[in-house]
């Protein structure tokens, strides 16, 4: 392949995509295993798994859109919307179980009042737990995080297809870069976070820097690889 100004733009797009994934993970309200026992606020699973689930659903939508158009804006937007739909459907059905099976009112243990609804939180936190369920602020934060993950995934996928013209290989590479950035961000938040209102959210610049370093290396490698036989 020839190394020209377009290649640099592609590398920059991949880097921006990776950074969006890295920062977006901080928005997703994950409570890890304790949340599955209604012992912590947020979604009861791991950060990377949830971010990957939503971001890659966005990647599927973006891949479909890219097969019919070359315009970058609808591709990015549809990636974001696909990821948001997955994340919201997950959080909503999870909320049904918190509200109607476990029977716990939603409460965050990190703030006294929900920044969006202004509902008081501490009276609703069960003894011996650090909150439960998915309050509105966490839901909105998760939606924003999913959108960033979806945009990030689409931004990584788009230049790769432009370079090698092979959707399958580009998708696998995009999944790989996505996972690297999601794992780095997950280490930064030590497994659990409630969303943008959580004090841990202030640590995002650290993840930003480490994702930048990791994605620069990955982006350079990614744009150099072409399929065997130049398919």
């Amino acid at each position, binding site marked *: 392949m020839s190394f020209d100004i377009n290649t640099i733009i592609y590398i920059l797009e991949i880097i921006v995509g990776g950074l969006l994934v890295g920062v977006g993970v901080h928005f997703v309200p994950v409570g890890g*295993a304790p*949340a*599955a*026992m*209604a*012992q*912590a606020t947020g979604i*009861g*699973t*791991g950060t990377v*798994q*949830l971010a990957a*689930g*939503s971001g890659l*659903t966005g990647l*599927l*939508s973006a891949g479909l*859109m890219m097969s*019919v158009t070359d315009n970058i804006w609808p591709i990015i*937007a*549809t990636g974001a*919307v696909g990821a*948001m*739909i997955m994340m*919201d*459907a*997950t959080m*909503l*059905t*999870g*909320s*049904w*179980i*918190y*509200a*109607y*099976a*476990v029977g*716990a*009112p*939603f409460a965050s243990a990190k703030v006294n*009042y929900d920044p969006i609804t202004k*509902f*008081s*939180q*501490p*009276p*609703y*936190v*069960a*003894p*011996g*737990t650090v*909150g439960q*369920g*998915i*309050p*509105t602020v966490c839901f909105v934060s998760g939606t924003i995080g999913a959108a960033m993950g979806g945009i990030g995934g689409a931004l990584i996928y788009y230049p790769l297809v432009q370079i090698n013209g092979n959707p*399958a290989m580009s998708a696998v590479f995009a*999944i790989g870069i996505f996972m690297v950035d999601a794992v780095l961000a997950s280490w930064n938040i030590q497994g659990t976070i409630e969303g943008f209102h959580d004090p841990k959210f202030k640590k995002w610049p650290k993840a930003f820097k480490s994702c930048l370093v990791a994605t620069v290396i990955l982006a350079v490698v990614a744009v150099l690889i072409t399929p065997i036989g130049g398919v």
Partner: protein
Amino acid sequence: MDAFGMGLVAAMGALATVAGASEDIESDIGSQSNPNSQVQLAAQVGNPHRIYNKAIAGEPPSNALWCTTAAIMAYVLIEGYHMPLLFAVAAGASLAALFNGVMATSAYLGRNASQARFNQWIYLDIIRYTTPSIMAHAWITSFCIVLISVIQVYVLTPHHPFPIPVIAIIWGLTVGAIGSSVGDIHYGGEREFQWRLFGQGLNTMLSGQIVRKAEAGLRNSIDNAWFCAKFGGPCTGMGFGLTVFLDNWRTTVFDPVTQAGAAIAMGLFFVILMNLYNFYCELSARRKYGPYPGYKGDIAA
């Protein structure tokens, strides 16, 4: 928009709902995901049990593995040997179920053998009659997901540019992520701790004190599947079904070439609707259950 496409999207939604439900029940019978931390802990705090224990990996990677295994076999049979689609998908799912059975058995033996010092036994009857149930549910999940991938690649227009195994790995990750976020709460938050006060999360002091007796005799994982199939499984199915259906519905109703803006706007509409619905759930739970009686702080409810 054509009627055939809409029918296919509806079929994909139905398949996804079944896949989500069977995925969650599979993880509940095997006690695989987040709630398994309590099952592991139970023996260590003096509560040996007869619950299956197969935490091979998190649900998303393991389901991605089953679905991709099934998809690769189906892909080879379809492309290389020109086999009928349904036969190829069923054969692929059978291979995935066999992989699942091997890993489930080795995980159960390994995990429980390592807890021998806590008086945790390996029950051969549990292996004999629980493992086939786990494999059967893994078969259903892989079958449905590979069929969704096949529909997306070969039948639904516009055809998806990714090959079947790549779509299967993504849907496998997604169904695992939803199963571990939704269905696990019903198993971990409700079924494992049924004698705590209703209407609160699990107090940290009760960690590891899982329920070990059943309606009759000692509780095993089949009892857990019976319970979780009533609400946790269907909710997971609904979550994954909504994801697959809504995401594909908007690009089928609106042509992605000429009406891309409308497809995106429709997706945003669904997102806003779900945000509002969650707010309603929060409001109704707060109204119904109220604040905890023992709260001594100075913030008004």
